Structures are given as C-alpha cells and as structure tokens.
C-alpha cells in the first residue's frame, strides 16, 4: 500500500503542476481530472474508500463537468490559450513562487517536528461514516443542505441572462 500511496501522490503533484501551468483551459481541466483521480487513489490507500468514491463521482465527475460546460459555453479556445501565454511570462511566477515556497517551507517545519506518528491503515467503512454523519453531525448535514439550496438558487438567479426590458413609453 505505501507504494500505491507514494506513486499516486507523485502523480497527483505532477498533474497539479501541469494544471497550473497549462495555457489551454481544457488541457488544464483534463490534468485536473488526472490529479483528482490520483488523489482518489491516495484516499483508497489511506483506508477511506467512501471518500475515494465521492472524489471520483463528485469532483472528477460533477464539478469538472460544470467547468467544462462553462468553458464550452464561453467558447474559450485558441484565443484564450494565446492570451494565457501572453499573461504567463516567467517573471510573473517569481513573486507568488517565493511567497508560496516560504509558506511550504514553514508548513514543512511545523509538520516534520517530532513526534511522528504512523498511520495504521484500517479501513473506515462507509457504514461508520453514515452512522456518524446521521448521528452526531445531523445538524451540520442540514446546514449543508441549506448551503446547497442557496447555491442552486443563487446560481440560477445569477446565471440568468437578463433581457433588457424597457417600459413601453421608453421604447423608441
């Protein structure tokens, strides 16, 4: 299992690097799908099969579909890629790169501080998750329900293409 973990972690990191460096949105999204699938493998290796399944279904499935829909609706193609190429000159990377590296370094220092503990891979089954979810976390589930509802309503409202409507007196 560690082999699986290290391998899929490497895939995930490389795929993510590819995502943030692509110029064409579709390419980036496809690499993102790869990254998500690799992370699903990591979940599996950590003994969380339910999370792995959700990762594939929701992230790599539903959310990615949304992105691809939007990219297609806006018809972002070669021009966008060219524009991205124009925007992403190497100099642009310096500032964010330094800042994020510092952040990574600091997080590593904090994480690598002893004591280190190993993860004994024992599968946390979907049953356990479900019992806990609909037991002690029931309020949070309801809240998340509200959040999703507002998300739907908000998206429907914002995404509506408003037709310019003039009063009949103002129409020429």
């Amino acid at each position, binding site marked *: *299992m560690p082999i699986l*973990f290290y391998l899929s*972690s490497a895939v995930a*990191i490389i795929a*993510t*690097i590819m*995502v*943030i460096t692509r110029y064409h*949105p579709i390419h*980036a*999204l496809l690499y*993102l799908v790869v*990254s998500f699938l690799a992370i699903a493998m*990591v*979940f599996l*290796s*950590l003994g*969380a099969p339910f*999370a792995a399944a*959700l*990762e594939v279904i*929701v*992230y790599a499935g539903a*959310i990615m579909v*949304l992105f691809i829909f*939007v990219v297609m609706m*806006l018809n*972002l193609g070669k021009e*966008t890629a060219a524009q991205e190429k124009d*925007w*992403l000159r190497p100099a642009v*990377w310096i500032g964010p790169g330094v800042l*994020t590296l510092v952040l*990574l370094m600091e*997080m*590593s220092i904090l*994480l*690598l501080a002893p004591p*280190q*503990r*190993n*993860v004994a*891979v*024992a599968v*946390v089954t979907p049953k*356990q*998750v479900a*019992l*806990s*979810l609909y037991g002690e*976390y029931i309020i*949070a589930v309801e809240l*998340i329900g509200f*959040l*999703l509802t507002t*998300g739907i309503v*908000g998206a*429907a409202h*914002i*995404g509506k293409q408003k037709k310019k409507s003039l009063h009949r007196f103002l129409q020429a």
Partner: protein
Amino acid sequence: MAPISAHTVLIVAAILFVLGLAGVLTRKNIIFMLISIEIMLNAAGLAFIAAGSRWQQPDGQIMYLFILAMAAAEVSVALAMVLQIHHQHKTLDVEDLRELKD
C-alpha cells in the same frame, strides 16, 4: 506492509495546497483561478482524510464530505458569476474587474 507516516500525507496535502495557491496568485483568468481554488480545497480535504485515518475515526471523512458539498455550491455560484461577468464585461481578466475599488 510498511506504514505510511501521517506527516508524509500532510506534506503532500501542503504541496498541493501551495501549488493551488501559486495558481491563484499567478493566473489572471478567472476560470484558472477557480480551478486553482478547487485544488486548494481538495488539498484541505486530503489533510482531513489523513487525520481521520491517523485517529481511526469517521470524522475526517465527514469533514471531507462537507468540504465537497461546499465546493459544489461554491463552484455552481462562481461559474454562474463567470458567465455573467463574461456577458457584461466581455472579458475574464480579473485585473479589469475593479469596481470594488476604494
């Protein structure tokens, strides 16, 4: 079966998070920024899963579920806004969207 150090997982999560952050800071296109935010959210989810495995508890997965739901809601609203922005401003350059300037 050699055990995996919990810290290794967390470092992977940190690397993913930092990559996502770098993407947000670097990109000017809103779509790419949103993609980068998804990476960051996913990295946070990974950290939760690792913690859940470390303590052999289902709570980590439950938190991941909540993050997932939140990400879904966020993406749907954000993409609707992207459509609207593209419709009104004919651009996706975040540097052009400065109406909230002081």
